[in-house]
């Protein structure tokens, strides 16, 4: 094999790169992220219900937040009425984080698990609410 060493090296590099996800996960049981709802505010709720049904929150929370930002900052509105007619203040800090006061265990655990780079925190200081577990 002409330049056989180089060809074998090439194949080895190819195989390492191509199977990299397998090598990296070797012997590792996949650990699911733990999303914690264990905050004082949530614990106090009689019915644990977010502003919209769970499925919608999972797939649409980014759109909701995005539209909240636009409506508050650009249109001066402050109130969101949900699918069952309940009003909420459109505020990440005052509404979302008042219950989900554990950013690391709630927001970040999923986002970093799935490698989603959010830019909420470049304006909002999500960490400040953490210490007393809520605004009250």
């Amino acid at each position: 094999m002409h330049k056989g060493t180089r060809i074998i090296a090439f194949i080895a590099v190819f195989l390492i790169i191509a199977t990299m996800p397998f090598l990296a996960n070797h012997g590792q049981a996949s650990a699911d992220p733990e999303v914690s709802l264990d905050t004082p505010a949530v614990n106090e709720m009689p019915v644990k219900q977010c502003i919209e049904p769970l499925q919608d929150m999972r797939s649409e929370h980014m759109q909701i937040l995005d539209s909240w930002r636009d409506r508050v900052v650009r249109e001066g509105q402050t109130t969101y009425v949900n699918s069952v007619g309940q009003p909420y203040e459109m505020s990440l800090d005052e509404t979302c984080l008042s219950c989900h006061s554990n950013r690391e265990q709630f927001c970040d655990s999923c986002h970093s698990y799935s490698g989603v780079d959010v830019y909420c925190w470049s304006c909002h200081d999500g960490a400040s609410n953490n210490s007393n577990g809520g605004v009250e």
Partner: protein
Amino acid sequence: MKIGLPLLAVVALAALAWLGCEYLRLQVLFGVVLPYLALLLFLVGFVYRVVLWGRSAVPFNITTTCGQQKSLPWVKHDRLENPSSTTGAIGRMILEVLLFRSLFRNLRTEKRGARISFGSAKWLWLGGLVFHWSLLVVLLRHLRLFLEPVPVVISGIGAVDGMFQIGVPVLFLTDITILAALAFLFARRVLAPRIRYLSLPADYFPLLLLLGVVISGILMRYAFKVDMLQVKEMMLGLASLHPQLSMSAGSALYVHIFLVSVLFAYFPWSKLMHAGGIFLSPTRNMPNNSRQVRHINPWNYPVQVHSYVEYEDEYREKMRKVGLPLDKEG
């Protein structure tokens, strides 16, 4: 026919995965069995093809020289276009693989009456380069689904790719560029009469398949809203050889995975192997130094020649008459 059939094939493949998961609940097949099978075919096939090429001899040094050779010390040598050393050849190969150097030379030839003129023609180079680099970024971005924790480099690539923060989820630039580049390459094949003439179904199929992969991926992100958590759990499961299925993840995901699987399985048996082949191309990966370093042909064999002795025997009298020196006076 040349275009219709590959198009039909890709649509049928997508439909197959959709129906199979939506109605027949064949998630195990499309989400576990086929991806593993495809990957196996890809790895084995790729290695097989490279080994097959590798086992063919390289009898001669046939570098295509595209610049001034190394000769006299005061003549400026073009080290990259006409390398005289392995280092130079590696440099040339890097230019070729990363920047498509040769394609960059492309010209357009036109004939007006008796005149032939040449114009710049960089679109193919640009389209090809944008496609390949976008594909690389897209592939690297996808590693976030296979690695836990996600390496900073990978999330960094994602952040840069989405740096314009358009919409939610953030629009990746490479989603646009890969789509545009593929559309261009496809349109070129269909619209340029000369290229359409020389194209085979085997040229349209991979293009359309790639378009299918890209479009299903984009739809999954922006329209069908596949749950990222479930996707990652599934991918980690596959990568750690502990597959876990998500029956609720939505069929769009399975369409995407299936088309990717087909692409991987098809890869080694098709022209897509140019990806591996370019590294072995003898006109590009050898230094042009065969006057300085003897290249060995492993199958060089002795041949029958017409020797001087025979020659002199045939022409001795004639040679003697004109006073040419002779080895034998005979």
